């Protein structure tokens, strides 16, 4: 299958994308903020539509700026309502997610009904189309991977510390707000470059499931990421392969099915799983 150049491009793009999602997803998971990624993914839709309305083109930089603004807005709205009201966190997440997505749908349908010439492909953001990944997209995805890897090497310890001991961080004079802002920015970046390929709903899956898989095998952050990466790369291969073999089948959903397969396997055999079917003795 690798004979085909376009498939190779798609494969590389999808794998890099899964790597991005797994890395940043793990740090969100550690903070028990997995569903925040889902909210953010839904919330960047109005931003993308707005910047399209203003610029009338699908230039990545502008779409990213739009996505960044509404994505950040959703995170700060959640914080704001949480601090100032007695509503449960689940309720607040639900309100913000559905409100921003509703706004996105309003703008999207407005654009579609206006009949702009450039608008085709905007609806790819909803469910994703991996086949539409071009070499230029791969370059963008790869730069995000690079940024992520460099940031993690430099700041990875702080990202872990904020999940377990944020009081300690403030004690030694490191701004937890700044760290949180960096994590949020990286999350939004990962999602924005990824949703064109796998869509708004399913990108959250690639951020949530790999760390959950990793956690079933280890409690060390580095190993959670490594095992998560293994699972998400394997699932990406499965996804691309299946949609290559059956052209009607979409890639994103098959990646998720692959991930859930890995998850079930880990649930049964993972060394840290409470449901493991047998004990592996330490040698």
């Amino acid at each position, binding site marked *: 299958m690798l004979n085909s150049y376009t498939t190779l491009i798609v494969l590389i793009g999808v794998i890099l994308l899964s790597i991005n999602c797994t890395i940043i997803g793990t740090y969100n998971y550690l903070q028990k903020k997995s569903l925040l990624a889902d909210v953010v993914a839904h919330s960047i839709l109005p931003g993308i539509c707005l910047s399209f309305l203003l610029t009338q083109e699908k230039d990545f930089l502008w779409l990213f700026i739009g996505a960044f603004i509404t994505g950040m807005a959703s995170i700060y709205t959640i914080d704001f309502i949480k601090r100032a009201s007695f509503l449960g966190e689940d309720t607040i997440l639900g309100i913000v997610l559905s409100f921003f997505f*509703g706004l996105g749908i309003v703008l999207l*349908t407005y654009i579609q009904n206006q009949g702009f010439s450039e608008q085709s492909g905007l609806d790819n953001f909803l469910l994703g189309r991996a086949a539409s990944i071009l070499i230029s997209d791969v370059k963008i995805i790869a730069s995000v991977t690079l940024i992520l890897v460099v940031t993690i090497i430099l700041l990875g310890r702080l990202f872990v510390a904020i999940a377990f001991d944020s009081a300690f961080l403030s004690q030694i004079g490191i701004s937890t707000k700044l760290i949180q802002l960096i994590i949020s920015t990286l999350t939004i970046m990962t999602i924005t470059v990824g949703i064109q390929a796998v869509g708004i709903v399913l990108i*959250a899956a690639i951020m949530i499931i790999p760390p959950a898989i990793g956690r079933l095998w280890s409690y060390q952050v580095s190993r959670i990421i490594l095992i998560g990466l293994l699972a998400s790369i394997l699932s990406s291969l499965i996804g691309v392969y299946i949609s290559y073999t059956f052209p009607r089948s979409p890639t994103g959903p098959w990646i998720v099915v692959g991930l859930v397969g890995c998850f079930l396997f880990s649930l049964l055999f993972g060394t840290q799983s409470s449901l493991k079917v047998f004990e592996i003795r330490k040698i």
Partner: protein
Amino acid sequence: MSDILTILIASLIGISCSILGCFLVLRRMALLTDAISHAVLPGIVIAFLLSQSRDTFFMVLGAGTFGFFTSFLVEWLQQKGKIQADASIGIVFTFFFAVGIILVTQYTQEIDLDQECVLYGDLLHVTLDVWLLTDGTNLGPKTLWLLVPLLLIIITFVVIFYRTLQIITFDIVFAQSIGIPVALFHYALTALVSFTTVTSFESVGAILVVAFFIIPPATAQLLAKRLQHMIILSIIFSIVASLLGYYLSVIFNSSSSGMIVVVAGLLFLLVFLLAPRGGYFNKKKLSHAATLSS
């Protein structure tokens, strides 16, 4: 005429969702609706493939079963699998949704289900999908024939078991201690949520239905002093959102379900900022009460 019918359908969905939503919001189960609404998609397709018909009865049954199953699975992963709560919801609903999308694209010719309809529904299309008898009698939109009985069931359930539901929702451990079969009511509520989700699916889609369940009750909770007031207020908010949202969507030529959600969200924001007791600008009172209780 079709304007009124569309608003009626939106309002009926809004009322059913709000009534159930009050209990979900108060019991901190709001995200369950998110999980269920995504999970009904494969249910709808599988029911179609098994029954070989778009008979609504099978759809509701199939999807309802899936929705029900989802809530089981989420709980099971959390309790037996010891998976973090946020992750277990995330895993289950994305998985079901992925399977649903695979099935929809696979059988797209056989089943007339638009991929986008899955996400945000199409109120206008549903309004036009009328029930015609063989002699040509027009019985109105098919959805109404599902929505009205469903709403009646929900109202009957809540009115009869009002006190029971109030006790369970307020203090579940006390409810257990006086012998109320808490699990049974939990499943009844889940079942009603599933059926409501399925029935609303074609009109408002998998993601926006969450807003119908959560936003009006949350808005009402900011104002209400009693549970019955909260239910009534949330009904009012959802009707206002349906009415305003529909007309705005006509003006701006865009998705009506999306616009209804936007209006509901703005109403929430308004109440959140201005509410006399819990409102943001009256926050001082709130923090005063907090210092009293601590």
